[in-house]
């Protein structure tokens, strides 16, 4: 299994102006985990209520897909230059 992403670096440059952002994903993931634990009983109830309509399964699949996507983002790198403008995005 992949390791979760730790840092996200975003840099947007527009001629002279621009900004550089380092986002500590490991802290955000910890926060998200706490929120997930708090919300999980409600989610279980929602899944059980919606199960007969078939949407409960969709909720499970969405949660699973969201985790898979987040976990597999490590190594993503986007570097786009268009004249003096540039956008750089990487997940470490």
């Amino acid at each position, binding site marked *: 299994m992949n390791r979760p992403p730790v840092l996200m670096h975003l840099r947007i440059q527009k001629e002279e102006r621009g900004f550089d952002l380092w986002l500590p994903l490991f802290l955000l993931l910890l926060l998200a985990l706490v929120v997930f634990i708090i919300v999980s009983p409600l989610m279980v109830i929602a899944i059980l209520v919606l199960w007969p309509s078939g949407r409960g399964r969709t909720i499970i699949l969405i949660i699973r897909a969201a985790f898979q996507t987040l976990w597999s983002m490590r190594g993503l790198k*986007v570097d786009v230059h268009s*004249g003096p403008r540039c956008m750089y995005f990487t997940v470490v």
Partner: protein
Amino acid sequence: MSESKKRILEMLAQKKISTDEAYRLLDALETGERGQGSTAKASTTVKEKPKYLRVMVLPDPESEHPENVDRVNVRVPMSLIRAGVKLTALIPPEARDKVNGALREKGIDFDVRNLKPEDLEELIEALEDLEVDVVGSKGEKVKVSVEY
């Protein structure tokens, strides 16, 4: 017992071939099977799975102002592509039709419903031995390759 071996023995029983010929055929079959097994084993040990898909758009080196031309360098983890393909299964049917319609407007006749993880695996396998290299209308180079 394999089908080929059975067929050889049947041919021998029907006296279509001699015992000597049957022996030689069985021997050749066994040698072939052993050879296939060893090459398959070798390819699995040597072949490494690609980790990233790299897409690069490089400006024409002969252009007058290469610094003003668009440059793109994208590295996408294969696992992210796989996860993305799995996500297509969650797209509601109405949204899928809209996506297909938008693609058709752009001249791409493709149904998102047909995108399956197995097809993607095949595509990745094909990309392992291939590097797409296209020169655009403005002389820019587009490279698509896999990285390990």
